[in-house]
């Protein structure tokens, strides 16, 4: 009986954790953990998920960026995932935070949703995400106007999954 009780308690806690981790919709935590639940991780087992991975609610036509420090001697993989309501492609760029040079633009890479690279020099970069399309909310200028936004048609979650590993040695 005691074992049964313990099993029941453990089961209940596990079920609660599972339901919490799936709560990545807008109702509960607004895209919380979306990148963890929806972005495909690399098949390379040496990659570890970076703490800077994040997700957010985006509007059609919106651009937003997040900063990441990358270190010499490491490989990085940046991959994106997004809610279907935002369309079948989104744009992302990797920009040098100091010089504003665009280091990568997925528009020149068939709108790829992921990018892997090796760092030769530590630096700070921005990952800039742009959702194609437009929304009244991103275009509104007049304070007096009401801004009509059909949230379910114009907003969705975007996840940015960042993975990293020590650059493997090449050759003997």
């Amino acid at each position, binding site marked *: 009986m005691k074992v049964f009780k313990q099993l029941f308690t453990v089961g209940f806690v596990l079920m609660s954790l599972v339901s919490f981790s799936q709560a990545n919709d807008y109702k509960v935590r607004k895209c919380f953990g979306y990148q963890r639940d929806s972005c495909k991780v690399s098949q390379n087992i040496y990659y570890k998920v970076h703490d800077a991975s994040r997700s957010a609610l985006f509007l059609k036509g919106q651009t937003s960026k997040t900063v990441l420090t990358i270190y010499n001697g490491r490989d990085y993989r940046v991959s994106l995932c997004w809610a279907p309501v935002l369309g079948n492609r989104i744009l992302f760029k990797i920009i040098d935070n100091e010089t504003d040079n665009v280091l990568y633009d997925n528009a020149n890479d068939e709108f790829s949703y992921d990018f892997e690279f090796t760092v030769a020099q530590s630096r700070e970069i921005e990952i800039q995400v742009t959702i194609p399309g437009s929304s009244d909310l991103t275009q509104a200028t007049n304070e007096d106007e*009401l801004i*009509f936004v059909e*949230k379910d048609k114009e907003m969705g979650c975007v996840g940015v999954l960042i993975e990293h590993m020590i650059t493997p040695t090449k050759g003997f």
Partner: protein
Amino acid sequence: MFKKYILFIIIFSPFQYNFAQECFEYYKSACIPKSSNFIYTENNSSVSFQFTSGELKEIPFTLILGIDYRITLCADKKFEDIIKFIIRAKDGNEIYNNSQQNFNLNLEFACRKTQDVTFELIAPEPNIGNNDTVLIDGCMGVLVEEMVSVKTGF
């Protein structure tokens, strides 16, 4: 004398009383918003009332910066979903008029400043025939919902 008698009957008739009863919290059963991934909560300004052809109903309301609103209007079938809905600012300016939007009865919006407005609801004019005027009487519901504006972007 006869006219007064008719008026007395209309005002105090059980039919009239029943209509008022019928419309009580009409919006709760009739105004069903579209299912959404976003949670709105009902605002206390939601109302139901009896509506007659050509009637204008005004509902004062305060829009608050940082709150998103969803308004669902629902009317008796007799009105054929043609209800004019205007949001008028305090200075008299129209800030929304659904007659330019095919008499849309569902709207979802955000506002950029806190302001007092009036929701104006206008029932269609009565049908005027050769010999008589047909007035339509029915229930009207206004469901007002709100949610705190969501942050977007990183």
